[in-house]
């Protein structure tokens, strides 16, 4: 039983060889975000659980809201061509459609923001990057929700 190596380990020319020795070993690569002494300890809140539950529940409601919205806006009564100022004014005259749109706005924004929050948590490696990305996300979310809510409640069909 003869066994041979095509490239024996000691024949391989290693890059950076000679720089390191048993007394001076190369630095090993730590995995991202290892737990250290300065890692924040347990928070003892149910926030992550509520976040997870909210994603499931809002998702179910959004399926109805968004598909209904798309059907009304794009398919029924001549499709997209009917949409204009008058169409929106007519729909928002009814509190039902106001509530529909308000609920859709809030759920979709929070659902999307929470999803992006988890994506940022998963992928941003540096603490600073993660913090600022989340701040940007929260600012954009609050701004959009605020603006949308304002428009739904203060919409004036007689505007000049």
């Amino acid at each position, binding site marked *: 039983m003869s066994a041979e190596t095509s490239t024996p380990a000691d024949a391989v020319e290693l890059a950076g060889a000679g720089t390191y020795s048993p007394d001076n070993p*190369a630095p090993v690569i730590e995995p991202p975000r290892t737990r250290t002494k300065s890692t924040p300890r347990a928070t*003892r809140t149910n926030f992550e659980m509520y976040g997870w539950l909210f994603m499931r529940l809002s998702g179910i409601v959004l399926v109805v809201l968004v598909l209904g919205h798309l059907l009304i806006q794009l398919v029924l009564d001549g499709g997209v061509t009917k949409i204009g100022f008058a169409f929106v004014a007519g729909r928002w005259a009814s509190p039902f459609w106001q509530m529909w749109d308000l609920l859709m706005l809030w759920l979709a924004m929070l659902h999307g923001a929470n999803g992006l929050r988890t994506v940022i948590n998963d992928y941003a490696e540096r603490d600073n990057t993660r913090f600022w990305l989340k701040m940007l996300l929260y600012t954009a979310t609050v701004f959009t929700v605020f603006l949308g809510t304002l428009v739904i409640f203060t919409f004036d069909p007689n505007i000049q």
Partner: protein
Amino acid sequence: MSTPTLDKHSAALDAAENTAFEQITITLRVRRFNPEVSDEVTWVDYQLEMDPKERVLDALHKVKWEIDGSLTFRRSCAHGICGSDAMRINGRNRLACKTLLKDINPEKPITVEPIKGMTVLKDLVVDMDPFFQAFRDVMPFLITKGNEPTRERLQSAEDRARFDDTTKCILCAACTSSCPVFWNDGQYFGPAAIVNAHRFIFDSRDEGAEQRLEVLNDKEGVWRCRTTFNCTDACPRGIEVTKAIQEVKRALITRRF
């Protein structure tokens, strides 16, 4: 019940009884790293004459014992019980001692890497401390209140069956090191710790479920699981890891409401 027997030998039995020594040439491609020589990793090919019915661990042994003694890897029992030799073979986490060469296409080079998401110390040896720290954090031991009974703590067969699946864990880290969330965030407890918490949370004799659930309810607990099922695919013991994680999530929700 008697085992059904065949009058005639099947083809498989004939093949099994044929003890002729089959030899094929395989290429074992090992990811090697030695911090005392270089900070770079190298892929080294070893050409070996092996029986396809042998295991990847046998190939590694052959390299270590006959070609290059500096090849470093962990193994203890070499029979799939101790969980020391989990490694990434052909891009999948497996136990080298349970993977037969014939099952992973020996015609192509077989790649062997250390498991991902942990610090590589040398060749195939990784630093398992973060893994075992997460294991310790979920308190993997029986917690009870009150006086110790004078006889053993009895349990019905149904109660025992409730957590049977998760008792099979051998702590090889194949699941945790296959989890993409763990790759990106080493603070996540990881599937193995949750499986071992599950083993006690659903044990009728244990009274520490609330403490364990509290630990796993946190930021780095079960809610980080994205149900990618990598852990279930990787588990060499066939534990339904993702199912166990989902059951812990369900227990958290049903107990908090």
